[in-house]
Each structure stands twice: as structure tokens, then as C-alpha cells.
């Protein structure tokens, strides 16, 4: 009798239970999707927090960057300043040290632009790398319109009151009007208008003084001053000029024309003028007496 031994086809209880568990959709999804995802995420997280890996990554990255930066296509070797004055060119080159040739990747164009725009003389700068390895810098210079005497300093100021350059002597720019006083730079526009208005007396004009950061005094030669009000300074000045035109006011013996109250102009005479006035009045009274 040949007793053949057949293998038991029945699954063991453990295997049976495992297969039933495996047939649960949630278990399958967990094992097939979430578990690998969790392992991968965990691995990445651990690698990211490992200093050795971080160092290696940084090195590799730097090396890659260097190779890219060394490409001849990215080399910038010439510097051009179309329509920038030589004086400003020198300033710019002193401010932004550019040791060309350099890679376009290493050039921070925005930084260069910001650095150039910190220059007083530059209103707006434009920096760009053109295709054939040229760094092109354009700068819109500020145009000085006034000379501002701030204490012992003489400064050139543009129409917004921004400083353009320093001036050694007033005579260097006799064509520009002079302003003085604290806070004068904040009211440059008004000063310019006053300067335009004062054109008839331009030869006699010495400058404008800002008083109390509030109002202007027009200073003429011979120590004459026209005190203008805070509001309506232009009108007041015109008023004075009309008076001058009609009565030759400013050529008379007057120190101050006080227009601070526009309705009631006040004149201050010189000492001699006052004495003369008294003498004349006394004479008139004597004649009367």
C-alpha cells in the first residue's frame, strides 16, 4: 500500500488571518501608499537634518554654480557708461568696485543699481548686462537749481531739495540763486517761484532766507530785506515789486519791507532816514509855528 502524503492545502490560521487583513482596502492602502510615503518622507527629513548631508549638498551646489558661472557665455568683461558725465563715472567706479571680467551670475545688477542710486548726484540709474558681455550703466543725473547755505556748508540742491553736490565757494555757481536757513531745502519749489517772480530785481537779489522753517525773507544788497508771509508769499512779493515799480520803493532808504501781514505792509527805515524824517517834520512844524 503506497501511502502518499499530500501537503495540507489549508492555510495556517496566521496566514489566513493575514490574507484577510490584507484584503481590507484600508490596510492595503496604508501598506502600499502611506507606509512608503512615510518612510520616504522620514528619510528625507532625517537627511535634511544631517549636517554632513547638508555640507555635501552645499558643496555640490556651489561646484555646480561655479561651473555654470565659468561658462564663457556668461562672462562680462567690458563696462560702458553711455551718456554719463566723466565726473560721475569716476564717482560710480569708486563706489562700486567692479573687477571685470566677471560672471553674469555673480553680478548683482539690482545691488549695483541700488548702490549707484545712493549717490547724491544720481536721480535714477539703469544697470543691465547686454548680450555681448557688456555691463551698461546709465544714470540720470540730478540738475542743480539752487545753492543752499546750510550753516557753513554750501550745497547744490535740485528741484526736490535733494543735495546734488557740495560747493566750495558761492562764486563757483553765480547763476544759481542762494537760499539759506534751516529747512530751506524742504521749500525749494517755492524758492524757485520766488526767484522767477523776483526777476525784475535780480541784479539786486542776494538770496532767500527761510525763517523758522515757515516763511521766506528776500535779502537784497544794501542790507535790505523783504519779509514775506507764510501764505501767499508770491503775491506779497509781487505787491512789493509793484510798489517798487510805482514808487521806486526799494531804492529808497529802507531796511525792511515787512509783508508778513499782507494787508498792512510795514516799512522800516534806516537810522539816517529816520533822523532826516524827524528833521524834516520838525522843520515843517517850525515853519508852522
Amino acid at each position, binding site marked *: *500500500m503506497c501511502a502518499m502524503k499530500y501537503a*495540507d*492545502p*489549508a*492555510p495556517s*490560521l496566521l496566514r*489566513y*488571518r493575514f*490574507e*484577510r487583513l490584507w*484584503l*481590507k482596502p484600508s490596510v492595503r492602502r496604508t501598506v502600499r501608499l502611506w507606509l512608503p510615503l512615510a518612510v520616504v518622507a522620514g528619510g528625507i527629513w532625517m537627511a535634511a537634518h544631517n549636517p554632513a548631508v547638508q555640507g555635501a549638498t552645499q558643496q555640490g551646489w556651489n561646484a555646480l554654480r561655479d561651473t555654470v558661472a565659468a561658462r564663457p557665455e556668461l562672462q562680462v568683461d567690458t563696462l560702458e557708461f553711455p551718456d554719463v558725465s566723466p565726473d560721475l563715472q569716476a564717482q560710480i567706479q569708486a563706489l562700486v568696485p567692479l573687477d571685470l571680467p566677471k560672471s553674469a551670475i555673480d553680478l548683482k545688477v539690482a545691488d549695483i543699481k541700488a548702490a549707484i542710486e545712493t549717490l547724491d548726484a544720481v536721480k535714477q540709474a539703469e544697470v543691465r548686462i547686454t548680450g555681448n558681455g557688456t555691463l551698461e550703466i546709465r544714470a540720470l543725473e540730478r540738475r542743480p537749481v539752487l545753492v543752499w547755505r546750510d550753516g557753513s556748508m554750501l550745497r547744490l540742491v535740485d528741484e526736490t531739495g535733494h543735495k546734488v553736490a557740495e560747493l566750495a565757494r558761492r562764486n563757483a555757481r553765480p547763476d544759481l540763486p542762494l537760499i539759506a536757513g534751516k529747512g530751506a531745502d524742504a521749500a525749494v519749489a517755492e524758492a524757485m517761484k520766488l526767484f522767477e517772480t523776483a526777476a525784475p530785481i535780480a541784479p539786486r537779489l542776494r538770496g532767500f532766507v527761510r525763517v523758522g522753517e515757515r516763511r521766506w525773507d528776500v535779502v537784497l544788497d544794501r542790507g535790505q530785506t523783504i519779509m514775506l508771509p507764510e501764505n501767499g508769499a508770491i503775491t506779497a512779493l509781487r505787491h512789493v515789486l509793484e510798489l517798487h515799480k510805482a514808487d521806486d520803493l526799494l531804492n529808497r532808504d529802507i531796511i525792511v519791507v515787512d509783508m508778513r501781514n499782507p494787508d498792512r505792509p510795514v516799512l522800516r527805515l534806516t537810522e539816517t532816514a529816520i533822523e532826516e524824517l524827524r528833521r524834516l517834520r520838525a522843520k515843517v512844524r517850525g515853519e508852522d509855528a
Partner: protein
Amino acid sequence: MMTPSLFEMQREMRQRREAAVKRGVVGILDIGTSKVVCLVLQFAPNLNTEPSVSGHVTIPSMGAFRVIGVGTTRSRGVRFGEISVMDETERAIRTAVQRAQKMAGTRVDDVIVSFAGGRPRSYGLGGEVQVENGEVSERDIGHAMAACDVPPYGEDRQPIHAMPVAYTLDHEAGLSDPRGMVGSRLAVDMHMLTVNDTVVQNLLHCVGRCDLEVAGLAVSSFASGISTLVENEQELGAACIDMGAGATGISIFIKKQLIYADAVRLGGDHITNDIRQGLQVPQDVAERIKTLHGGLLATGADDREMIEVPNPMAQWDNDRRHVSRSDLIGVMRPRVEEILEEVRDRLDAAGFEELPHQQIVLTGGSSQIPGLDDVAARILGRRVRIGPPLRVRGLPQMASGPGFAAAVGLALHASFPQDECWDFEMPADRIGTRKMRRAFRWFRNNW
């Protein structure tokens, strides 16, 4: 008293089955003597849900199912359709379930179990009750069923099926569904089937050990009847003989209701045993000879057809024995005749002759013996046919033979469950007293 517990258990199974059908996957487990079959059914979401007559008892019209997994394995540790070795049976169930699950690709949690053994015994009960509100309601039917006087079926037995067969309302007999009808006296004829309690408990325990939930229990002869009898036969009256390996089940249907079920504890294994003894061959060889060459009608040609039989005492390779096929038939036929005679006795005792239409359908693995229909017609004396089960969707060819009648029937039963006694609301007084008694017992035990 075991009855209340089984009542609750059946009700629980019913709920579990409905839940499982709603979820979409139900397992079918037919534990037979020769093989364990597991089918995995996939139910379509309720496509054709009809509103049921009342809200309480739903008549699930969920016919749309397909078989998505089949697992079959040789059964071990089962004798006469009853579990004799728990471990072996458990392993066989695990194998079948695992195969079916693998094929289906889904997990099965709820299974409906059928078995052949347990010595089923049928009882016809009758109960009569006054209709409460003129119109017959669920409650009235429940009351009528509760009014049935239950014969003493023995302490060691449990009702496994209790189905209302026909109702009589006043003088109108033979109603199949009196719900909503108007009358005053409602009588119910109930068919109750009891089986051995130990057998059922063992079975439930064994299935439970495989991590499965039992969502229904059925006697396999009942399930075979559902799948093999065509509608006409079920309506007019027919008997289904499920010739299994360890037991031969009998079920009689009329008006689409099971009215009698029984089992003869004889089957194909006994034929194999006879061959084993008669031809002096080992069990597996006997089984093989039976399957390949077996027959029941000898002709002259069979005398000359020699079957090679391995000689257990063979000294050299070509020392063979030869047996003629007529000898084999001579061994097999008396046992088949014995089985069929036993079946005839049971049918006679059940009063099958009084039915208007007496079709007999043979099914089960042993019904595939050639010539069985002739022998059966000679012994049972009526119209006999051999019937493979109904084709259901998705069932592979391999699993559509007569041997799978019970499994297929169970699948059909799962999709069209018949009303059972426990589907109806029982009168409150019974349940109430039991609850009171339980509460009282708890109080006494704990204080």
C-alpha cells in the same frame, strides 16, 4: 429553554444578512461531506427596490447578484454532513474561503452556511388568531405564528427553519400573503424544521473560529430544492433529492414553499466504501473508479469492458488486476437502490403521493452516476429527472454541476429570502415576560 436564544440568533442573523447584502458582499458556505464550497456573491446596489407592503418586514428584491469568487476544497472531518473533527473542518473552511476570497479579490465577513446533517425533522404547525383591526397586519401574522402549538421536539433539537406555508383568512384558504387583507380570523400553517442542537452549535463555533460571521443557516436539501426545481415544479409540487456524499437530503416544495425536509444518512461515500470492500482497493482508487467507470445499468458490452485495478499486493509492475465494468455495476447498484428505497420510504411517510404533481428531481454529486434516472424511475416510480442547479451569473463552469446545487440554492436564498417566523414581530407579552424574567434573574444574581 433553547428556543428563545435561537429565535434571537436567527433574528440577528437576518439583520446581519440584510446589512451584508446592503454592503454588497455575502459569502456562501456549503459544508458537505465530500467538499466545502465557498461562493462570494456581489450584490448590485438595490436597482429594483420595490416599496414593501409595510415598513417593518422588508421583502428585499435584490435579485441582481453575481458570483465573483468560488473556492472548493475537499472536505475533511465531516461525516454524514456533520462535523466530526473540528480542526480538520476548520482548515477545510479556511482553504475554501481563502480561495474564494483570492478569486474575488475582496474580503468576506458574513457567510450563509448550509449543511446536510443534523437529522432534520419536519413539523407542520397550525395557529389561529383573531385579527385585531379588521385589516391583517404584521402584528397579526406574528400573533398567529405565536399561537401555533409547538410539539415537543426534544431538548437537544432546535428549529432551524420556521416558515409560514399558507394562510387562511376566514374561509379563504391557501393565501400566500394576507397582509393588508380584511378579515376576522387568521389561521396560519407553518412548517418548522428542527435539527440537532449540538450539530448546529458545532457548526457555528467552527465558522466562528475562521473569523467569519454567520449571516444565515439553511439545511442543504432546502437550498438544493431552491436551485434545482424550476418555478413550475416549485409551484405545483415536487421533491428534490440531493444525493450528497454523506447524506441524501429530501425536500418537498409546493406553492413555492418548503413543506417537508428530511435526510437519509446514506450517500456517495457508502458507494465508494462498497467498491473499496468489493474490489479490495484503497479509498482514493475506489473513488476514482466510481467517478470514471461507475454506472448502474449493465449491458452486454460492460462484461467485456475491463477496468484496470491496481493490485495492492503487486510484486512487480505489470502485475495488474482487471475487473469488468459489470462487476463494478454489480457492486454499486445495490447501494444506490438501498438509498433510493430509503428515500421512497421517507417520501411515502411525508405523503408525497397526495400532491397534485409529483415531479422528482435528483441532484447532488452522486446523481451523476450514469443510469441513475432509470433506476430512480424504477424505484421511486414517478417522473424523475436529473437536474443541475440553475445557472447564476458569474458562476464558472467548474462549479455549475449538480454537486453545487446546495451552494447555488443558498445564493438564491440569500437574494430572495423567504419569510421566516422570526421576521415577524412577536407578541409583546412573550418578549416582555422574558425580558422581565431576565431582569429579575440579573437582579437576583447580583444583589
